[in-house]
């Protein structure tokens, strides 16, 4: 287990004097930096395939050989190998979901109260961007719902600019009925799907 990590660590030094034509790839699955959730990944080539499913599960591919059996790296090995990149991850995007009053273009009072928070989130970032995405339920055609989502997103854009958001930071799009919060059959009214999502990056 340690041999692989050690080989990977020492490799960057040895490669300068004796370049390995085939190269070496190390892939490690990590917990999400914000939520701590661990996903999964597959690593494959013509010679074989492995699945990474645990925190710090790691495999190495030497040249064209198959990925080595999965090993779990220690936290310090992980840091040593990857911190140079990891430390430069941008801030996690922040998400806000706004809902409308029943059969209305008016935001619920809870959602209206989120607008100043969106403004503050944008102000707290070095290179802020605000993406406003309109969503609809599945009542009506996919095409009209794209237009409807765009209109709702545009209304929220105006409200944010009215309270002081720099309009040059804002982008408005519609996902129509293609990205449902609650999965439904076509033509099913679903208030939770009529929403505007805001991402502050």
């Amino acid at each position, binding site marked *: 287990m340690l041999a692989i990590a050690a080989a*990977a660590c020492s*490799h960057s030094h040895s*490669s300068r004097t004796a370049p*390995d*034509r*085939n*190269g*070496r*790839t*190390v*892939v*490690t*699955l*990590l*917990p*999400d*930096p914000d939520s701590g*959730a*661990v*996903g*999964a*990944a*597959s*690593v*494959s*080539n013509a010679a074989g395939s492995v699945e*990474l499913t645990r925190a710090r599960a790691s495999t190495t*591919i030497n*040249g*064209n050989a198959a*990925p080595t059996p999965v090993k779990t790296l220690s936290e310090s090995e992980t840091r040593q*190998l*990857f*911190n*140079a*990149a*990891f*430390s*430069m*991850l*941008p801030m*996690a995007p922040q998400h806000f979901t706004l809902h409308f009053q029943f059969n209305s*273009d008016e935001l619920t009072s809870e959602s209206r109260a989120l607008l100043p928070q969106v403004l503050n989130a944008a102000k707290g970032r*070095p*290179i802020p*961007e605000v993406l406003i995405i309109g969503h609809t339920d599945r009542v009506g055609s*996919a095409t009209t719902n*794209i*237009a*409807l989502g*765009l*209109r709702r997103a*545009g*209304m929220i854009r105006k409200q944010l600019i009215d309270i002081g958001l720099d309009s040059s930071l804002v982008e408005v799009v*519609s*996902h*129509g009925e*293609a*990205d449902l919060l609650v999965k439904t059959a076509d033509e099913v009214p679903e208030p939770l799907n009529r929403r505007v999502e805001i991402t502050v*990056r």
Partner: protein
Amino acid sequence: MAHHLRLIIGVLALTLLATAPAFAQQPASAGRIKVVSGTVYLVRAGAQTTAQAGQVVYQADVLRTGSDGRIGVTLKDDTRVSLGPASEVHLDRFSYSPAEGQLALALKVVRGVVAYVSGRIAKLAPDSVHIETPTAILGVRGTTLAVRVDGV
């Protein structure tokens, strides 16, 4: 009235998009450089320029760092990618239009050390995310990966 006007403008914009694929092919931005440190380059259509925080990145762009360089990028679907020193990553494909069913992310890690935190594309269509290195192909089912490619 204002509502109707906006609706008409929205529909017009969509009609333009739908009927003019030549315009749609004009590259949409894929994301933005959020943090840089040391020597970092953006290579676009073969031309290498110094990369700066705030700059927009597009599909087909290449991020390259010098021996003291590091860079962090956030893509439009919330994917985050960062590179340590002496690294190179190609943003081969990026498409994030769920309404049109177009979801794709392809990254090539040519060398160096790279961190990747998945975004909405991996959530909506995990099979649409491809990360490759010179000797391996990675399939991503969400969250976070680190990749290191040495000796190339």
